[in-house]
């Protein structure tokens, strides 16, 4: 075989030399290329050796999964006491929502998934009807959760746990985007009064922490309403969270608007389009596309900020966890509780971040380098 001769250009490609491919070469290139690199690899491996086994032991191998109380757990094993979490799981999920009505929460959650899917993915069948449903969803969910019109009414102070996080997060996300778009357009507007109003609103909200706004909502807001009229605390919180997120959203979208070349606005004028059609058909689709990563980041920020409601006394998972820690049966298990809630937030926020990457790739219409 080796005697075979080739005409020029016909010779098949030979495999690369053995020391340039395979795991050994990969290790040499990525872990051991220079002295500094070797030192860093050694340090990293030492760090992993110290941390990973200890963490795995505490989390799983030495952990107690059943038990009546803290001493029970400690007697069984030296690691985490997950029995606490599993005993309180229902509380973490539903808060103090009446037990016989919890099916309504479950149905709302399923409907939420059904409403989100057509928004997120454009290949689903019957997407158009799905989108109508998505628009109607907030009202259906409000009816299901609050009751009335044939269902037993449930007070909002019974809301809690992951359900409360989802209620605040989804409402905030759904309403902050349109308000943010309006504020961003207002800030770019030719009309001085609209512009001044938008700028002062945005800068005021961005200058103060959310927690002070929540305090305003919980202590002061009732003074500004006519005597006798009161708002529900959850509603006040929802309004504040939405306004807070919409100010940040406005800045993000303004970034997108500023990136649109002036020629696009002028072209829209030349086509004889009025202000709103020009914005809706030409400017906003481009501006929103550019700002998707930052919009999703703002959503993630809003979702994480829902935990702040514990400071004014609403019981989201963190609040439930802190309240449960006060129970003498389970005292001192703060690490378990906080880690559990952290995992919940990590999964939701990491998922949102991944989706934003997917969307960014999908909407990229210019040529990749």
């Amino acid at each position, binding site marked *: 075989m080796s005697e075979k001769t080739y005409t020029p250009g016909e010779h098949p490609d030979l495999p690369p030399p053995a020391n340039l491919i395979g795991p050994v070469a990969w290790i040499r290139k990525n872990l051991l290329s220079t002295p500094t690199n070797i030192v860093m690899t050694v340090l990293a491996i030492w760090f992993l050796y110290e941390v990973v086994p200890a963490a795995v032991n505490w989390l799983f191998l030495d952990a107690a999964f059943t038990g009546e109380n803290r001493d029970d757990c400690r007697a069984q094993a030296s690691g985490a006491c997950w029995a606490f979490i599993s005993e309180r799981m229902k509380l973490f999920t539903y808060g103090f929502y009446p037990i016989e009505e919890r099916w309504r929460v479950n149905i709302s959650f399923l409907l939420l998934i059904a409403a989100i899917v057509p928004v997120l993915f454009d290949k689903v069948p019957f997407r158009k009807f799905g989108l109508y449903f998505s628009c109607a969803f907030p009202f259906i969910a409000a009816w299901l959760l609050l009751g009335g019109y044939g269902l037993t009414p449930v007070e909002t102070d019974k809301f809690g746990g992951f359900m409360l996080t989802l209620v605040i997060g989804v409402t905030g996300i759904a309403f902050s985007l349109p308000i943010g778009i309006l504020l961003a357009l207002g800030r770019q507007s030719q009309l001085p009064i609209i512009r001044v109003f938008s700028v002062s609103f945005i800068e005021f909200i961005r200058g103060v922490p959310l927690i002070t706004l929540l305090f305003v909502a919980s202590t002061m807001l009732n003074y*500004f309403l006519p*005597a006798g009229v009161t708002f529900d605390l959850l509603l006040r919180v929802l309004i504040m969270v939405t306004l807070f997120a919409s100010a940040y959203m406005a800045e993000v979208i303004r970034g997108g608007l500023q990136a649109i070349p002036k020629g696009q606005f002028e072209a829209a004028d030349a086509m004889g389009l009025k202000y709103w059609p020009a914005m809706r058909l030409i400017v906003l689709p481009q501006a929103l596309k550019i700002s998707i990563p930052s919009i999703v980041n703002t959503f*993630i920020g809003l979702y*994480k900020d829902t935990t*702040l409601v514990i400071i004014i006394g609403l019981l989201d998972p963190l609040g439930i966890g802190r309240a449960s820690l006060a129970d003498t049966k389970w005292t001192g298990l703060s*690490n378990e509780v906080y880690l559990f*809630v952290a995992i919940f937030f990590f999964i939701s*926020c990491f998922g949102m*971040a991944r989706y934003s990457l997917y969307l960014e790739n999908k909407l990229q219409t210019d040529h990749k380098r």
Partner: protein
Amino acid sequence: MSEAVTPQRNVVSRLWNDKETRSVIIQIIAIVLILGFFAYIIRNAMINLEAIGKGFSFKFLTQASSYDINQHFIEYNSRSSHFRAMLVGILNTILVAFCGIVLATILGFFLGVLRLSKNWLTSKLAYVYIEYVRNVPVLLHILLVYGLIVHSLPVPKQAWGLADTAFLTNRGLFSPKPLYEPLFWVVFALFVAAVIFSLWFRRYAQKVQDDTGYHYPVFWITVGAVIGLPGIAYFLLGSPITWEIPELKGFNYKGGMVIRPEFIALWIALSGYTAASIGEIVRSGIIAVNYGQTEAAAALGISRERTLNLVVIPQALRVIVPPLTSQYLNLTKNSSLAIAIGYMDIVATIGGISLNQTGREMECMSIVLILYLILSLLISAAMNWYNRSIKLVER
């Protein structure tokens, strides 16, 4: 058929279709709505306050606060006024924000460089840290770190000692407290003089380099002046500082200086959280500098280290500083979460205990909001000034 249209309607539609008048009309409507809204809520507030006989006044600020604050930099006790409590709160907020910004910047640059490292393992470790931290709420980080300190650090009796002078316990870090003797002001004056000298010297060295091309070792001369000079004076004057070392008395340490667990938890959690975002900002800033710049520097024969200092970092800073500013602002605003673990900042003092004791919601909350607005404005002003000073100077 146009004659059938009444003149009145004609006028309205003409006004509406004229761009100038339409914008005036829209703005008049907007201002009437906005002013009407404010007038309405202020009227409501006045009626409501009248009804419970409260009024709106800041007189309560001079009353005795009658609560304690465990960390105070100015003289404070429970007989001090609410105004003084507010000052203590402001100082505590500024302290944690300042320390947090410093640590977050250092950690953030470190993380950003690690993320860019050629070493696969360290870069992935930094990635895991950044993703974990960014996807978990900051309040949870604060509570988690605080829980770790309170539950996992030893009680004072079994404190982790450092050479029997500093002790780490779940009640905080106890360290020796400097007691200044009269001669210490000489050392301090020398230090101030050295700082002023080095600021002047930097300008002078820059001028000499611009004129003649001669390069002074600015860094070493500065270090020598700022650290060496006061150091020598300190020993020549016979060490005019004595240290008060904390001692275990009963169940806790007495004397010395204590850094409270609330402060440590807030500081570590806030800086760790912000550092993750700063790390990503630094990474994208360094990537944004075209590789051709590094190659051009190499072609000019500039050493690797000076390429980084003189070519890459100044250009990366232009991309890094604007988002860095908003991270600093975020950190300052997030420090208000201190209230969850009982660190006495603005929100916990004037917006928390003072508010509950006096029932002056309106006044207290307006003070808190205005203070945060001022803080935010100051930080943005400082960072904008810095941003202008590093901006690209074009012809």
